[in-house]
């Protein structure tokens, strides 16, 4: 008993509620799932053998990895220059651009996937225009193929790539580039030798994040891809709906998980982004430590020395005509990326006011009929109401539990333990979502909460707690603990100190966490579809069904309403964050990931 009291008084004790929920809903079930997959206690690899013996399964696995790699690659190629240009932009423009990236990030993935159906569909925007112009006689097959999958996936993942990159790049001291140039490095050399190297942590964590999330992608490939573009999640989901041989499903889930875990441990995911400490070369993951390129790079570098020497002498004190081309190209590039990120949303908003009866763009007339159909249909209304109730409950539960956990974790004096526990608490958002869904399904079955609102709240909360912990920890990391000592010196008790000093200062982080928790729940469709049973229809579930079966513009009206949400939330964040200090923008970005 005494031991429990000591533990309870230690900061780590504050993480107990979070870990209780995590273990009961997700942790223990996933271990059970693993035992099931190896047929414990008999222990055999039969299920895995079965998985790998079907060439179709292996093909889907390889395809999943391939699609994820390609999508991640595209995200890096588009995201890196975009982030660079955002950081290079003047302050006000930079804030505006970051907001424009965050808006699609906060918009429902379903709404965005729907937008691409509208744009790429047989009667969608592009085909309609081309047909009207007489350039084609029959619609081009733009949708239900691999390209459409990439377009949709990159669209959803790009903000995840850009935001961590912007956050890391903002932390790079501008005088370093000036220093490089003053020592004779041409702009491209300075960029490559200094800026690029220092931005690598951002590329690494952004790419790993995107890759792992891509692995678990379910909705976009299923909605935009054709039959041959199935990903492992789609495959697992269909296994769930058809057979429900739990051992087989478990084996597939663990194969997917293994790929994700291998990537995570190889490249290391640093969600805390503590680049503030002068870019210290902290613990590096093994891949960058022994780089085989090092020797090659040095060799190429030596080859370049005579050229450099000659150029140095030739060009010393030569006036340089500053070309305008990079600026023009950069502006056009950013405009294109912003167009890509925001245009689909715009299309959906316009669609929602369509007077036509089917999916058609541009609409032949304007009306509010689809809003009427949304508000008039009790099934839509009920779904929306259910979603709001669940999301509010999730926001409250996970904000309280997550804030306590974040507080406990940052105050823990053992860095190893802190790292390990943080990693554990983030598993529901770093593991492929379908795996989390199946584990949660199993957990809720054991608890007898399957198909209940409580069950869904718990299922959403395990992920939401992760978001809250990330965001609140980022805020607490910037928090000056001497302020607490100051309060204590003025005879404030621990509770008073927390309430009067700590809480007001970390409130922006807590509100941000609550917003993300709400959105996480309000947007969640994969886990919900597994644990909702037949009785509960949340808004995303209803939308998902609608997208798969009928695709009428009611969904455009819903999506438009959902897009108002991030704008609303951004205003909440603006009031709490930007008003307090624009200097804390990196903190916001850190936490946005």
């Amino acid at each position, binding site marked *: 008993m005494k031991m429990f009291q000591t533990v309870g008084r230690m900061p780590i004790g504050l993480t107990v509620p979070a870990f209780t929920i995590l273990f009961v809903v997700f942790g223990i079930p996933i271990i059970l799932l693993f035992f099931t997959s190896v047929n414990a206690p008999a222990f055999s690899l039969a299920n895995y053998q079965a998985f790998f013996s079907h060439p179709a399964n292996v093909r889907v696995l390889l395809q999943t990895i391939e699609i994820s790699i390609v999508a991640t690659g595209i995200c890096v190629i588009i995201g890196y220059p975009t982030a660079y240009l955002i950081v290079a932009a003047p302050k006000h423009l930079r804030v505006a651009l970051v907001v424009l990236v965050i808006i699609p990030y906060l918009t429902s993935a379903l709404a965005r996937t729907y937008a691409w159906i509208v744009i790429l569909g047989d009667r969608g925007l592009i085909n309609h225009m081309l047909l009207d112009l007489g350039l084609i006689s029959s619609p081009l097959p733009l949708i239900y193929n691999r390209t459409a999958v990439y377009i949709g996936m990159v669209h959803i993942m790009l903000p995840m790539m850009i935001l961590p990159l912007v956050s890391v790049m903002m932390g790079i001291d501008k005088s370093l580039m000036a*220093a490089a140039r003053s*020592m004779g490095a041409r702009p491209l050399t300075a960029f490559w030798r200094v800026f690029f190297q220092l931005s690598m942590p951002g590329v690494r964590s952004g790419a790993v994040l995107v890759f792992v999330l891509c692995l678990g992608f379910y909705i976009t490939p299923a909605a935009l891809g054709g039959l041959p573009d199935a990903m492992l999640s789609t495959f697992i989901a269909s296994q769930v709906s058809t057979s429900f041989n739990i051992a087989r499903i478990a084996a597939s889930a663990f194969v997917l998980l293994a790929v994700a875990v291998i990537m995570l441990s190889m490249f290391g995911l640093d969600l805390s982004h503590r680049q503030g400490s002068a870019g210290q070369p902290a613990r590096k993951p093994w891949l960058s430590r022994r780089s085989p390129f090092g020797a090659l790079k040095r060799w190429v570098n030596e080859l370049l020395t005579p050229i450099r020497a000659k150029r140095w002498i030739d060009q010393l004190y030569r*006036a340089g005509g500053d070309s305008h081309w990079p600026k023009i190209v950069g502006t056009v590039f950013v405009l294109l990326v912003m167009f890509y990120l925001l245009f689909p949303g715009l299309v959906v908003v316009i669609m929602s006011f369509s007077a036509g009866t089917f999916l058609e763009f541009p609409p032949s007339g304007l009306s509010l009929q689809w809003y009427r159909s949304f508000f008039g249909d009790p099934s839509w209304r009920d779904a929306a109401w259910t979603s709001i109730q669940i999301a509010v409950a999730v926001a409250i539960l996970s904000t309280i539990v997550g804030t306590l956990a974040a507080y406990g974790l940052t105050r823990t004096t053992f860095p190893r333990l802190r790292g390990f526990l943080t990693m554990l608490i983030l598993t529901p958002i770093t593991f492929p979502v379908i795996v989390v869904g199946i584990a949660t399904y199993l957990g809720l079955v054991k608890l007898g909460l399957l198909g209940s609102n409580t069950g869904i709240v718990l299922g959403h909360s395990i992920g939401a707690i992760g978001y809250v912990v990330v965001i609140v920890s980022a805020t607490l990391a910037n928090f000056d603990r001497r302020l607490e000592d100051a309060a204590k010196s003025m005879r404030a008790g621990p509770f008073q100190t927390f309430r009067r000093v700590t809480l007001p200062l970390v409130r922006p982080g807590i509100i941000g966490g609550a917003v993300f928790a709400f959105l996480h729940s309000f947007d969640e469709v994969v886990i919900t579809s597994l644990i909702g049973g037949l009785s509960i229809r949340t808004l995303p579930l209803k939308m998902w069904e609608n997208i798969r079966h009928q695709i009428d513009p009611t969904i455009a009206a819903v999506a438009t309403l959902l897009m108002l949400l991030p704008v609303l939330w951004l205003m909440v964040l603006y009031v709490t964050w930007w008003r307090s200090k624009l200097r804390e923008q990196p903190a916001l970005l850190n936490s946005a990931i």
Partner: protein
Amino acid sequence: MTVYIRNPVSLTEVNALEQSAVPAQIEFRKVTKMYGRVAAVKDLSLTVRRGEFLTILGPSGSGKTTALMLLAGFVAPNEGDILIAGNSVAAVPSYRRDQGIVFQSYALFPHLTVRRNLEFPLEMRGMKAAERAARVDRMLERVHLEDFGGRMPSQLSGGQQQRVALARALIADPPFLLLDEPLGALDRNLREQMQVEMKSLHKEFGITTICVTHDQEEALTLSDRIVVMRAGRIEQTDAPEALYDRPATCFVAKFLGEANILENPGFTVESDAAQPFGTVAMIRPERICISLPNAPKRANADQWQSVSGIVDEMIYCGPLRKYHVRVGSTVLIVREHVASEQQTFRLGSEVRIHWLRCDVRFVSL
């Protein structure tokens, strides 16, 4: 080639030197730099001679950093021209200039070791690996960091980082060195130590150095010549001692050390020289003596002016005491070195203060 101006020289002497045989290395010709509608630097003309240690001193917003940025090639002037060794560099980007810069925050590359940091400028100049290594070794030895070549900058102390930054700026033998608030980030003791070290490095390398700072002590200790800037213009240029001893304006007098500006003091300020029009009398606190009201008269009493006043405040600062003495409506600061048998004057007591008439200076407002 190295010329050191150690003795105080008057403004006219300096001007004469400017036209002397010592070649000008850097020249600003009526340079103006606008940021929007604000002129950060206005009509700046300045000549820096080879081997000279010149400090640009001024409060923040005086345009001193802009002057440095112009010289480094990070910004281009709107008007006027800058010449380096006879080349017009107004339109030359930074990377085509041969220069060494020590940045305020040192700007050491955090992802490279000390050794690789030092190699960087050599690499950019196309030097071969073997030669680079030899140079780096020599330089590390010179700044007493032989054992630190393999360290990352974050593993060094502030003073060591400063030395690496200085070494990196000097390693490619640039014709001149730019220092941006070089000692600003160091604590007091370390700063004094580094001042000495930098001075000896300057002597050793004989390199033309332009330093930008707002720290008057740094400027006075290190420089051959100081340029005081205010609101984008040069207020005064002179050798440190001359600048301190004979400030031209009230601003310079106050910015460099403490000054008693006697504008309508309520008593006649006697002086050997006639007061030029548009100037006020100024006397440095350490040139004023303080004594009891009934103290015996000094020798050569005719060379002294004395007034009586009341001690308003006494501030003890270690080696010296500062008194605020009220004479009529004027308060004069008196600075006196603390000697063992010396008496202190209590608050409110009447005292006599006196100064040599030749110590009175006239500064324009």
